[in-house]
C-alpha cells in the first residue's frame, strides 16, 4: 500500500517535471549531444539546432541570418559558431552576430534538461524576429 502510494507520488513528480508541451518540445537525449557538435532539428516550421560548448547545451536558430546556409554544417571555435558559406560568426550563448557579413543576430531558445532529455522552448528568448 505504502509502496504503491510512493510510486504514484513519483509519477506525479515526473509528470510535473516535463515542461509544458505548448511551450517546450522534446529534442533528444542529453547523452547524445557531444561537445563541440551541432544537431539540427525541426520546430514547427523552423530549422533549429543544438550546440554544446564547454559542457553547456544551447539552442539557436539553425539558418544564417546573412544568406541561406545551414549553420550546423559550419563549425564551433570557442564560443563562436561559424557559418559554412561566408564565415559569419555568431555567439553561441547570445546569438549576437560577431563576424560579418551577418549583421542580424540569431534567435536563441531556452534549453531545459529533464530526466536526461533536452527540451527547447518553442519561442526564442532572445532576438525573436517577430519582435524586431
Amino acid at each position, binding site marked *: 500500500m505504502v509502496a504503491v502510494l510512493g510510486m504514484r507520488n513519483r509519477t506525479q513528480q515526473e509528470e510535473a517535471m516535463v515542461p509544458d508541451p505548448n511551450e517546450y518540445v522534446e529534442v533528444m537525449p542529453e547523452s547524445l549531444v557531444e561537445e563541440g557538435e551541432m544537431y539540427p532539428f525541426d520546430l514547427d516550421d523552423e530549422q533549429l539546432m543544438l550546440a554544446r560548448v564547454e559542457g553547456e547545451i544551447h539552442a539557436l536558430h539553425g539558418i544564417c541570418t546573412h544568406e541561406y546556409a545551414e549553420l550546423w554544417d559550419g563549425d564551433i571555435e570557442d564560443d563562436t559558431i561559424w557559418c559554412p558559406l561566408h*564565415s559569419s560568426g555568431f555567439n553561441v550563448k547570445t546569438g549576437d552576430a560577431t563576424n*560579418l557579413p551577418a*549583421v542580424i543576430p540569431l534567435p536563441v531558445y531556452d534549453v531545459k534538461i529533464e530526466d536526461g532529455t533536452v527540451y527547447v522552448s518553442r519561442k526564442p528568448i532572445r532576438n525573436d524576429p517577430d519582435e524586431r
Partner: protein
Amino acid sequence: MSTPRHLVILGGGLTSHSAALAARHNGYDGSIVIATDESHPPYDRTPLSKAVLQGTRDTADLGFQPDVDYETDGIQLLTGTTASAVDTTSRRVRLSDGETLQYDDLLFATGASPVHLNGPGFELDGVHYLRTIPDAERLKDSLTGARRVLVIGAGFIGSEVAASARSLGAEVILADLAPVPLSAALHPDLSSIVAAIHQDHGVELRLRTSVQELRGTQRVEEGVFDDGSPVECDLVVVGVGVQPNVTLAEDAGIRVENGIVTDEYCRTSAPDVYAAGDVANWWHPGLGQRIRIEHFDNAGAQGTHAGKVIAGGDVEPFAPVPYFWSDQFDTNIQYAGYPKADCDVIIRGDPESRSVTGFYLRNGEMQAAVTINRAREFRAVRRLVAARAMIDPRTLQDPETDIRKLSREYR
C-alpha cells in the same frame, strides 16, 4: 583629462564603417566623421553582383547596421561629400562643398575604382561597370530583357556577373586574356573546375583573347576580339580589375606604391594618418612582405584594426589569414591563406563532381586552401592553414580522411 580628438575617415565602405565603430567602442571619445562621395551609408557590396542582380535582395537592405543609426555611436556621416585636398601639416581636409575639417587622426579608406577600358566603342550605351549601388541598379535594369551579355574579364566580378546574367536567362559570353577564369586568384587545377562549372551552365567562355573594340550605332551591338572575329551582344559588363583610389594621398605627399603604403598598424608615412582596406598596401609580418587585398573580409578586419590603433592602447600587429569567398550559380568558393605562387597543389575530391578542396603546400607546409562546393570542410581547412599544418598529402587526398576531425587538434 585630454582634449577630445577628431577622427576623419575618408571613404564610405565597410572599412570606414568598421573603423568608426572600433574606434568608438575602444575608447575613442572625440568626434568621428565619415566623408563619402556615395549617397548611401556604408553598405555590403558583395551582394551587388549576385543577389541584387538576380533580384533576390533589395539595395535598400545592404546596410551594416539595420537597426542602429550611426548617431547612436556619435558618428557623423557626410554622404555625397568628396575630400578635395588633404594637408598633413596643418591637419586639414578640404571637402568638395568648400568646408574644411580639422583632424587629429585621419584614415584613408578610399577603396578602389573599376579600371575603365577606353578602346573604340566603349563609350556606347549598354556598357557597364559594377562597384556601387547605382551601378548595380542600372545594370539590373539593363539585364531585364538583355538577350546576349558579353562580360569582359573573368575575375570575381566578371564571373559572378556572368553567373547572375545566365541565371536570369540571358546568353552569356565570358571573355578573358587568361586561359581560365579567376586566374589571378586560383591555381589552374582549381580555376579549370570553375571554368567547367560555367560551361555546365551554358556560359560561352572566350579565353586567351581580348575585346579590342565595341560596335553599335548608339547602343552596343557587337564586340570584336583580337583575332578580328565579332561577337553579337546587346549588353557589355567590364570587370577587368580595380585600381586603388590614391590620388588624394599622393597629392598630400603620402607614400604611395600600389596603394597607400602602411605598416602592420595601418600607419602611413605621415604622422597620425592611417590607411586600410582595398586602398592600403600593408606590411604583413607573417608573410614578410607587403600585400594589398581587395576582399570583403580584409576590408572589415583591417578597418577594425585601424579603429583600435587610432583609439590607442595595446593592439597586436595586423597579420590575419586572408579570406575570401565567391558564389557563382550554386557553387560556393572559399579561400583561406597566403597568396603564394610557388606551391604544390593537392586536390581532394573528384573534379568531375565539382566538389573539391585544394591544398597549397610549400615544403610540406600548408600555405593556403580552397574549397569548391565543400563548405562543410572549410572552417577545418582554414584551421590547418592558420596552423601551417604539415600533413602527408596522401592523408589529405584520402576520401576516408575526416578533415573536420583531423583539424580538431588545431582548434
